[in-house]
């Protein structure tokens, strides 16, 4: 890796090489393994299986506003319009070949971890049926609050990781290398620490990054964790953002940064930059969400790799109780000095969204801050009412302005 590349260039280089490797996997004697974004992909990396994330590919298409077109194709195949837009756009890509990227290679095997949601399991089952392919479900029971139950859940997950290793050995006809896994874990742990450091730079005032930077910055953590290039990328990124901090450069100038916002849920991918501009015009910057923190793992290299993998993947925010999500969000509110929140009810993501009304009520009460709640879809523009969302955002900032005028010290 060249030390002269900036993070953007490095990201492009890593991504290009990764996709090149993926498209040539079979030539190089490797298999393609589809994986859900939050799953113990370290086992794939350690076993020389090229991980491909259909969710990432879907994000590229949805961000490029292809959602409505692609989702309609899938609905014509008999699927309903309220299924996840990632799944609908992906199934449409397979039917039509439509994509704004070069596409993704077909899988040889699939790994679905249900710590994110159950939808991914069902979606991957459709893909597995299509290609008559082997699929492994890594079942992560909800990380409930009982300490003893958590220990048992981790044991169950470790058992499954052992089964996953057996599954990989059977599919690839190759012995799993535990020493290689330890090496991969080392990279994963290092990059996770750096990724978290990058996200946490949003605590500076003015914040040098917004959630939109985080969403762009998280891509490498999603698809290249467990590799040295991932570590290099986040080191470069952290250095760049630190330089901004040192110079006092913020997303908004310090005197314009009035509202530091928390965002709940995945983003509305196709409104990404519009939202940033609109909020900026009101002096608002969305700093973070639990979603972007989902990849800031805390691997303990002194533990058995399978144990620390199980502990980390089972306890991601989407698999945690609402009470724990409240604690996680509260910690972010305090750390980042946030004074506003947007709670997005994402039609595509039931697993995350159905907790939002309850989460919102508790957070509003606890933080003493009003919340903006709006319902739409992360990828299907047909469920996005432009004027309604804009009006609500405007009204929300008016409320915040009024509250601030009434209580300038707050």
């Amino acid at each position, binding site marked *: 890796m060249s030390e002269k590349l900036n993070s953007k260039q490095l990201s492009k280089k890593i991504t290009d090489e990764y996709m090149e490797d993926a498209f040539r996997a079979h030539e190089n004697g490797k298999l393609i393994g589809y994986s859900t974004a939050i799953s113990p992909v370290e086992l794939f990396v350690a076993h020389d299986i090229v991980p491909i994330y259909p969710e990432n590919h879907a994000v590229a298409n949805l961000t490029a506003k292809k959602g409505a077109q692609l989702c309609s194709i899938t609905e014509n195949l008999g699927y309903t319009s309220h299924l996840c837009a990632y799944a609908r756009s992906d199934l449409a890509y397979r039917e039509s070949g439509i994509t704004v990227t070069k596409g993704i290679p077909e899988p040889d095997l699939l790994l679905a971890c249900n710590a994110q949601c159950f*939808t991914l399991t069902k979606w991957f089952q459709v893909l597995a049926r299509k290609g008559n392919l082997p699929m492994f479900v890594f079942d992560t029971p909800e990380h409930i609050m009982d300490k003893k139950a958590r220990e*048992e859940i981790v044991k169950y997950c470790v058992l499954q990781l052992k089964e996953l290793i057996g599954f990989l050995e059977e599919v690839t006809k190759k012995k799993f290398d535990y020493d290689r896994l330890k090496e991969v874990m080392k990279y994963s742990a290092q990059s996770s620490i750096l990724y978290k450091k990058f996200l946490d730079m949003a605590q500076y005032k003015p914040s040098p990054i917004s959630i939109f930077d985080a969403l762009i910055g998280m891509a490498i953590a999603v698809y290249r964790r467990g590799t040295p290039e991932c570590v290099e990328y986040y080191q470069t990124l952290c250095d760049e953002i630190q330089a901004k901090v040192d110079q006092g450069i913020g997303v908004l100038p310090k005197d314009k940064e009035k509202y530091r916002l928390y965002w709940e849920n995945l983003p509305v991918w196709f409104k990404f930059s519009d939202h940033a501009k609109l909020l900026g015009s009101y002096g608002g910057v969305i700093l973070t969400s639990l979603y972007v923190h989902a990849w800031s793992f805390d691997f303990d290299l002194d533990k058995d790799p399978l144990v620390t993998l199980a502990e980390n993947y089972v306890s991601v925010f*989407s698999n945690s109780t609402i009470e724990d999500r409240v604690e996680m969000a509260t910690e972010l509110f305090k750390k980042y000095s946030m004074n506003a929140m947007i709670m997005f009810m994402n039609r595509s993501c039931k697993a995350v969204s*159905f907790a939002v009304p309850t989460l919102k009520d508790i957070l509003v009460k606890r933080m003493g801050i009003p919340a903006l709640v709006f319902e739409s879809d992360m990828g299907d523009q047909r469920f996005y009412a432009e004027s309604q969302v804009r009006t609500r955002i405007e009204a929300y900032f008016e409320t915040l302005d009024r509250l601030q005028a009434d209580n300038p010290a707050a």
Partner: protein
Amino acid sequence: MWEDLNLKQILEYAKDPYPSIRKWLKDKGKKAVGSTIADVPEEVIHAFDCLPVSLIGTDKPLKKAPSRLPDNGCSLARSNLELALSYEGDLFDGFVLPQVCDTTQHLSDIWRISFPNKYVESYLAPRQVDRPSARYWVKEEIERLIASMSSWSGKSINDTVLNDSIAIHNENKKLLQEIYEIKKKNPGTITNKQFFSMVKLAMQVDKAEFNKTLKNVKANLKPRKGKNYTDVILVGITCDPPEVLDLFDEIKLNIVGDSLVTGSRYLQGIVAQNGSPVEALAERHMKGGFFSPIHDNVYKHFEEVKALYKATSAKAIIYVHIEFCESQEYDLPDLKKMIRQEGIPMHVLDTEYQTVSLSHLRTRLQAFFESLKGGSL
């Protein structure tokens, strides 16, 4: 309370079992523990001297649940939450709620936060059953439920108590199976609505009492073949509102096989009684009859449905789709394709709890069976 019901009373109680449950609990001084379908071992709850009540929605209007679960949530989950929040919450001392799908991912959290003074426990059945770890985990979860119930109730149970509970539940399922067999062969004897109301009520009331009713009903049934019935297979999770069954009866459909959680998947849950009851309950989970969209693949579903169709010489399959049930919706396009490729006539009924008008379902159902009789679909 439920030991000497006639068919008319069974229909009435099944439509709204809660007044009778409320009275029974008061008379007996017992506690009720509700659970949503499908995997919670009710025998464990019963062994703790509580009344296990399967929550299967309400036909009353939604008032509070939409503020907790939006309109794209499974209508059964919303209906159950409403049932507890607005109508019958007071009669339950606790709830044991399984995590099965995305709608239920945080459901027990929502219930726990909504009912801070009640016992609310999660039941985390494995969402895979093909590997040894699943069996390990089912057993762990059953043992955790026992420990949790014990801690809450201040009581402890042993294998004998649990086996006694299992025996009562097994008898209940066996009696229902026997009545089902009579009904399948003699559709003029009892209606679809009457039979499935029996199953539903069995899932909600005291089995020891209701078994007496079932014995009486069975003894007094006068098998009648009836005329012009069309045998069908009913596929799905639940079949609600119950008036849908009236539609089947109206056009003389005879359900001769089903894969419903509120039907054969429940009836097939007889537990072996020749060893450790916890092991036996785990075994039931692993070998549970009929497809579960949570941990089985569509091929299994297709093969089961096809086998049932052939074994019963049914004329068609009716698939009951619950609106916004993603678990069904990812499977349905492929399942439809497989069934149609096999040349099996299939009709999909889209249902939703709280539905008040069934006229569109009636029209579509009538059209389907008219075309079936005409020989072309």
